[in-house]
């Protein structure tokens, strides 16, 4: 490394526009002649569409068009939404469609789009579109979906099984037979939606002069949006450009290409004028992805000392009506189970079940919270069985530092095995316990109980796969202006990655991060991009940008050496100027070097130097890198009301080398808040037919300032060995063990009653119920 910006708590470059109201989110894009869209959505969980009559809607003043499947079909090459994953085998009936043709399979599925002068008029017109439905039987709960004789989610499917798979290594049979303890656990896990405060949205413009289609979309994957539009409308790659303006959070809910994006772009092609659609919150509840339900029936085997011998069982995952991405949530959940622990034998049989609810894909954490929850509940169950301390049981099972690198024969989706290449899991937990005063907690707890107060301390550990490849481009360019720009396929959605990337780049040129302009999420400037998910972008794009910056720096120094007729080893690069060491007057600016390399007349250029002061790098990680964390939580439970107050929250986190500790801490705290939501508040309810019953923020509760505690963070930096920066991803680190730690703490507080928590989220009334049941059972 050259400068000292990497690792510095630099204030964010993104802030100024956001703080003064001059940022540009999708809804802030106003193109002349824009018409606004509203969607006609299915009010039924499952129905046949007999007819769509939009006459009255079309006749409303201010309405330009109403398109249903029949109207847009001629423009589309097919009615199926990408991604096209050739290796994924699943029930064809669950392939998502662009527009419902004759069957709708969840409430909120789009049936038609209305285009009008304003959203107000468009919504008036939506109410005038007359859709004749024939309601079909539906299924809401994923376990019911698998019962014999269950209603079918898709009329033509033989059953509701989307796919099955097994995660396995070792041999559970003998391990369980020999175990001193075998403990069963039935877990019901629920995670709601992403709920970024900015919903989804898209503006599409067709320009007849260039035959170009430009879309501005609030997405986590601009390139995937472009690619989908290219395929679905049979367009030329070079004629379609997807741009992501400022994005108001994603958390998974903007990670796929949605039918709405495709239909809005189609409407722009058909009308030859700009079209805008901005999701409202109700639509986000109805039609944006969620993570939702998993039912685990497992048993864990341990020896007499509480050391893990095996974990086995089955899990049912609620896929919703459509397979929008694959089985990442279920798959990741199975991968997350062993986590930082020595688990010698493992077998989990997974059934992915279709339901008449909106499709599920990963929300921040992506199945890791569920797998972690399962293992951490198992740890607590073993501790309770043995009457041992919960931290002590974990201590006995954590992978010792001297066994790192550690290999698990468990395959990730890219086919690689789980390979913990760095990290010290026991040290992280000990640090967390020590900071939390764990060894003196029992005394405090006893004193509190004497005073009639129920306090508890919980602990949970996790690992998280990060830095998924295959790559993310980093382009560094210095033009004749001397200004430095970075282009990448990575996506900014509020994390602060532009600042982090600017730090990485600026370090090579001895300039302020503010002197580096970072442009993300524009397919017009970077041909390929994967996108923002899975805590991957600092690793992939960060490494590419670092390597490209180093290359440009070297190019600049060599060229300057030629121009100054000295050796490049005698040169200093600082403040955008290259000078001969000790002779500051003998210098050239980066602008001059850029001019020389751009072929400007009169500038000397080394003959063998490729033109352009720029470099483009696609760093290919040789392996995944794993972050890990230990969370310790203290709570106080009001046994009368079931109210849970989190009084202390400690995180020890290993995200490898930190680019910007402030941004990393922001990611962790935000993740913890999300995890607290999953533990105590966020519940996406459906009735037995599949009708959503929580469709406002008054019914679906997000964590607010009074319920989220201050989170104390201790960094434990073990640099990753598989990328040049030594970084690990951090976007999801905070959320993963949070619900497990909170539940552990609640159980600890309620130990006198023997309450066992086997579900997320847990509401106050439910906790009161569990206390009652535990009292009655004891």
């Amino acid at each position, binding site marked *: 490394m050259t400068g000292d910006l990497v690792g510095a708590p630099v204030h964010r470059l993104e802030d100024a526009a956001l703080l003064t109201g001059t940022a540009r989110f999708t*809804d802030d894009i106003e193109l002349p002649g824009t018409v606004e869209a509203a969607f006609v959505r299915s009010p039924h969980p499952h129905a046949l569409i007999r007819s769509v009559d939009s006459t009255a809607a079309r006749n409303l003043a201010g309405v330009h068009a109403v398109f249903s499947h029949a109207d847009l079909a001629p423009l589309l090459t097919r009615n199926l939404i990408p991604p096209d994953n050739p290796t994924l085998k699943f029930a064809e009936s669950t392939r998502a469609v662009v527009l419902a043709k004759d069957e709708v399979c969840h409430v909120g599925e789009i049936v038609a789009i209305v285009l009008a002068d304003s959203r*107000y008029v468009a919504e008036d017109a939506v109410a005038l579109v007359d859709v004749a439905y024939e309601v079909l039987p539906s299924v809401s709960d994923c376990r019911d979906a698998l019962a014999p004789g269950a209603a079918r989610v898709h009329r033509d499917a033989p059953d509701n099984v989307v796919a099955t798979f097994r995660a396995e290594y070792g041999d559970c049979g003998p391990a369980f037979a020999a175990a001193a303890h075998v403990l069963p656990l039935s877990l019901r896990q629920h995670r709601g939606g992403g709920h970024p*405060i900015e919903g989804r949205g898209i503006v599409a413009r067709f320009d007849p002069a260039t035959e170009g289609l430009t879309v501005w979309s609030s997405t986590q994957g601009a390139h995937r949006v472009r690619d989908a539009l290219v395929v679905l409308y049979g367009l030329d790659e070079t004629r379609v450009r997807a741009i992501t303006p400022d994005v108001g959070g994603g958390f998974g809910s903007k990670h796929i290409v949605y039918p709405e994006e495709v239909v809005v772009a189609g409407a722009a092609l058909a009308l030859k004028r700009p079209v805008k659609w901005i999701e409202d919150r109700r639509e986000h509840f109805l039609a944006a992805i969620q993570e939702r339900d998993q039912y685990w029936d497992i048993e864990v085997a341990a020896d007499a000392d509480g050391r893990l011998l095996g974990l086995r069982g089955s899990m049912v995952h609620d896929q919703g009506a459509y397979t929008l991405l694959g089985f990442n949530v279920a798959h990741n959940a199975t991968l997350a189970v062993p986590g930082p622990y020595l688990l010698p034998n493992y077998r989990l049989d997974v059934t992915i079940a279709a339901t008449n609810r909106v499709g599920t894909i990963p929300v921040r954490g992506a199945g890791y919270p569920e797998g972690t929850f399962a293992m951490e509940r198992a740890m607590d169950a073993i501790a309770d069985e043995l009457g041992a301390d919960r931290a002590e049981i974990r201590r006995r099972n954590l992978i010792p530092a001297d066994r790192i690198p550690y290999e698990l024969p468990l395959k990730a989706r890219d086919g690689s095995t789980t390979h913990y290449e760095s990290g010290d899991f026991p040290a992280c937990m000990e640090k967390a316990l020590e900071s939390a005063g764990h060894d003196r907690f029992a005394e405090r707890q006893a004193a509190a109980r004497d005073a009639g107060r129920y306090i508890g301390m919980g602990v949970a550990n996790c690992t998280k796969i990060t830095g998924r490849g295959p790559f993310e481009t980093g382009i560094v360019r210095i033009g004749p202006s001397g200004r430095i720009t970075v282009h990448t396929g990575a996506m900014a959605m509020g994390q602060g990655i532009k600042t982090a990337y600017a730090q990485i780049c600026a370090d090579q040129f001895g300039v302020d991060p503010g002197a580096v302009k970072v442009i993300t999420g524009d397919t017009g400037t970077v041909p390929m991009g994967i996108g923002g998910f899975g805590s991957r972008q600092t690793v992939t794009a960060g490494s590419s940008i670092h390597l490209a910056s180093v290359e440009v720096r070297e190019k600049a120094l060599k060229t300057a050496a030629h121009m100054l007729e000295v050796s490049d080893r005698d040169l200093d690069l600082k403040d955008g100027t290259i000078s001969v060491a000790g002779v500051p007057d003998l210098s050239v600016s980066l602008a001059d070097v850029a001019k020389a390399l751009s072929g400007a007349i009169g500038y000397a250029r080394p003959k063998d130097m490729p033109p352009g002061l720029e470099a483009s790098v696609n760093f290919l990680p040789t392996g995944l890198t794993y972050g890990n964390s230990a969370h310790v939580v203290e709570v106080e439970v009001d046994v009368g009301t079931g109210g849970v107050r989190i009084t202390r929250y400690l995180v020890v986190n290993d995200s490898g080398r930190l680019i910007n500790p402030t941004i990393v801490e*922001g990611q962790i*705290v935000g993740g913890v808040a999300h995890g607290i939501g999953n533990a105590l508040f966020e519940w996406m309810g459906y009735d037995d037919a599949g009708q959503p019953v929580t469709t406002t923020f008054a019914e679906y509760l997000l964590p*607010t300032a009074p319920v989220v505690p201050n989170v104390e963070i201790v960094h434990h930096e073990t640099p990753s060995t598989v990328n040049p920066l030594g970084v690990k991803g951090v976007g999801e680190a905070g959320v993963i063990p949070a619900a497990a730690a909170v539940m552990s703490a609640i159980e600890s507080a309620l130990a006198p009653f023997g309450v066992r928590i086997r579900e997320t989220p847990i509401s106050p009334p439910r906790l009161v119920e569990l206390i009652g049941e535990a009292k009655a059972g004891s």
Partner: protein
Amino acid sequence: MTGVGELPETRSVTLSVNGERHEIDVETRMTLADCLRRKLGKTGTHLGCEHGVCGACTVLVDGRSARGCLMLAVQANGAEITTVEGLASRGGEWHPLQQAFHEHHALQCGFCTAGILTSMVEFLGENPDPTEDEVREALSGNICRCTGYQGIVRAVLDAAGRLRARNGAIAP
């Protein structure tokens, strides 16, 4: 909803936004937030739920915080409105809250930020020396999905100090 063939009713209203007077015709059903964003180009005010819970749309109407999504533009006729664009001084110097938000990493995506800033301007006006619990309580009407609130709470406490110092300096 307007019936078929019936034109939505419009009224002429006068709004003063960040000290600038506007006389405009608005549909009676248009919300204040849509009016500010669409008709007056003040896109710094955001909509996160349009049902009064998230607080992203909060603006100051005659100095009092109001949900721009729940108030109609016609209800604000004659009022003085402050949006996030009006928080900095005329010379462009940031409000102490804006400065503190920047320094304490009180925003990530920034979509909730305008509504939080305006709410906190009102709050610190009423309670210049709040405790952390009071700040958290005051923030309970604004949802932030990104930050976990920690940076926001620190920033508000810090800004309170800066404002006290500034006001103390003016009025000893």
